[in-house]
């Protein structure tokens, strides 16, 4: 029985949507690779929130497990990504994302 002060489910989803868009914004407008990377993490977090909200909606634990996997994979991705960033910085002495544009035709 929901108490009087319960929150509509949609708010959570809207919140995660906004966070996701903030992540996109960070990705599009920041120039520092690390910041861009962090924006990706932000998007992942937003998605996790959605997962968990829906697993609340369906009263099923699978959403939790998905977001658990998301976290784990995010950890792996962070390790590799930061290693790449380190290497890039070693070779180019720069973290500006637009200066690393040599991978093209």
């Amino acid at each position, binding site marked *: 029985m*929901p*108490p009087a*002060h*319960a*929150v*509509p*489910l*949609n*708010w*959570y*989803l809207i*919140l995660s*949507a906004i*966070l996701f*868009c*903030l*992540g996109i*914004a*960070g990705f*599009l*407008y*920041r*120039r*520092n690779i*690390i*910041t861009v990377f*962090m*924006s990706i*993490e*932000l998007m992942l*977090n937003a998605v*996790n*929130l959605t997962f968990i*909200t829906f*697993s*609340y*909606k369906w*009263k099923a*634990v*699978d959403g*939790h*497990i998905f977001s658990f*996997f998301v*976290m*784990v*994979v*995010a*950890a*792996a*991705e962070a*390790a*590799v990504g930061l*290693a790449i*960033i*380190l*290497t890039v910085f*070693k070779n180019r002495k720069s*973290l*500006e994302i*637009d200066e690393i544009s040599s991978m093209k035709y």
Partner: protein
Amino acid sequence: MDTVLFLVFALIALLCGINLVVQTHPISSALSLIGVMAALAVLYLLLGAEFLAAAQMIVYAGAIMVLFIFVIMLLNAGAERVTKTRQLVKLAGVPLMAVFLGIIAFIIQALLPKSQLVWFGGFPGGGPRDIGIPLFTNYLLPFEVTSVLILIAILGAIVLARKEID
């Protein structure tokens, strides 16, 4: 009570998120990201995902973000210099995201019943036991595969970050 908690922490998450985007210094962005994560952890608790809240703190805030900060310190990354962004991005970005957000909001409003409510304790199934059992029965294969993935990631990171690369 729930409403208050939700509003407070949602607000924190939002402000930190915005701060992440507007700050030019990576450390500030990192801190605000940590803020977002902490706030989200509380929201997870409200949604009954206590284990994930803890995991969020340990894995994201405690490990991943520490790595980020570590790297930022290591590279001693300063604030961004202002360079010209790509025209396309500059023009397309904001309207695109506005549309994106609008559509998502519309879909959520249209598809989901507004009657659906969330309150603390409404879903008790978020404890470690409730997650562990399906994780090691139904989701065993994904679990193992993920562990292999992590192993590979570790190796990759070590190989990439070796001195004698370059």
